[in-house]
């Protein structure tokens, strides 16, 4: 999986108009295979729209999005991408296991795949609980578990760690790292800058444009500070001065 040619995702001049306003203003970047790439930026910067474009469920205005060598949304990609939306996209009136078994059947994944992913997100004890009775954090992890079904090559996760306590957050980032070590490519969005340090690669978005694209160390160096939050602020200021 690691030695396939080309990047996992290649985006060229992507523009998206939603509700009459342009929310992505011509993005161009690549995401390498087998790494955790963080998609960071404040709420409303276009993270979710970009993620939807990568998964192939967003109507794009212009530009190209190539995923695993194919145009985004192509039929061959539908079993290769695990996708988890920001709000938990699972059936509240089914148990967690019933949810996982249904999505596993749709993907053609093995029957014991449901138990495996449940274990991976640390919900092994909650399989027989109705999803609607879970706490917010558990619900989010159940939704993440669905994305892990069928061991996809690419995982696209929209804010998977929102509302989790620090211990669980650390566990999940540990899971992401170990998946990347197995050759899985991960794109993880977050609006919390301290999560950026856990990624090998960062793409920072602001108001529909790329503010920075590189490794966390490269970013610190460029901004001249060790604190990523501070680095973000300096980059915003730097850009504002350039525009002026």
């Amino acid at each position: 999986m690691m030695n396939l040619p080309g990047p996992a995702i290649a985006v060229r001049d992507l523009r998206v108009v939603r509700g009459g306003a342009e929310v992505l203003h011509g993005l161009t970047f690549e995401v390498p295979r087998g790494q955790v790439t963080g998609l960071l930026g404040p709420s409303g910067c276009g993270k979710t729209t970009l993620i939807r474009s990568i998964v192939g469920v967003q109507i794009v205005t212009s530009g190209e999005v190539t995923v695993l060598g194919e145009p985004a949304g192509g039929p061959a990609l539908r079993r290769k991408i695990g996708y988890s939306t920001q709000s938990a996209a699972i059936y509240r009136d089914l148990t967690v296991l019933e949810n996982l078994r249904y999505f596993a059947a749709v993907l053609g994944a093995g029957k014991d795949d449901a138990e495996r992913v449940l274990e991976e997100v640390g919900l092994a004890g909650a399989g027989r609980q109705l999803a609607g009775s879970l706490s917010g954090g558990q619900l989010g992890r159940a939704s993440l578990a669905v994305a892990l079904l069928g061991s996809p090559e690419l995982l696209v996760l929209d804010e998977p760690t929102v509302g989790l306590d620090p211990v669980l957050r650390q566990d999940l980032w540990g899971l992401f790292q170990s998946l990347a070590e197995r050759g899985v490519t991960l794109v993880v969005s977050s609006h919390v800058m301290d999560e950026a340090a856990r990624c090998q690669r960062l793409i920072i978005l602001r108001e529909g444009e790329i503010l920075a694209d590189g490794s966390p160390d490269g970013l610190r160096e460029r901004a001249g500070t060790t604190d990523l939050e501070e680095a973000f602020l300096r980059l915003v200021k730097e850009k504002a001065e350039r525009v002026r």
Partner: protein
Amino acid sequence: MSLTITLATAGRILAQLRHDRRTLALLVGVPSVLMILLRYVIDDPASFDRLGPTLLGIFPFIVMFMVTSITTQRERATGTLERLMAGPLGRFDLLLGYALAFGAVAAAQVAVVLAISLTWLGLEVAGSVWLLVLVAVLDSLLGMALGLFFSAFARTEFQAVQFMPAVVLPQSLLCGLVVPRDAMASWLERLSDVMPLSYAVEAMQEVARTGDVTGVLVRDILIVAGCAVLALVLGAATLRRRTP
């Protein structure tokens, strides 16, 4: 299209209903109670023999329209539809899954109402009981398909509920329940000619009236089945992989 995915979807919808016992009880119980009420409100066996089958044609239609429009609206709102559309599920897999599950529920509903009507309430039906069940199930599929179609225009569950009287009540008024169709003003009769529920009700009345399979009955069954297929295709058109 995939049989596995279709069957998994039907199983999932039935599992959701199994967890929701109250809805299940309402689905089967309410039509039965209404039929009992009708019998004693009219209190005249001859009139009940005329109106009973008409109601049998209307119930499954109303109930399935409502259940489907709300269920689909919920699938859109919670993101499960987007998740499914990003995966290998085809829209006809989803539609047929719905049709199988709700068709089974409709058959159960009609079976209970019919059993009560034919025994306790003394309804006299000249034709085959199986033809009554067939027309009722086709009718419920028509309601389901229309519910699916109209749910695409509802942004909230609240709006989805409002579509029920908007779509169902005009058809119920004009289908011959209140006044026989040929006794209505000619413009109203023409209006009722293009409403599928009119033919469902006419088919029910034919089965109740005579033991023969008349030309009118065959024509009505074909019209109802044709409308159900047409509505399903329209419903399919509202399920998009890419959304704005």
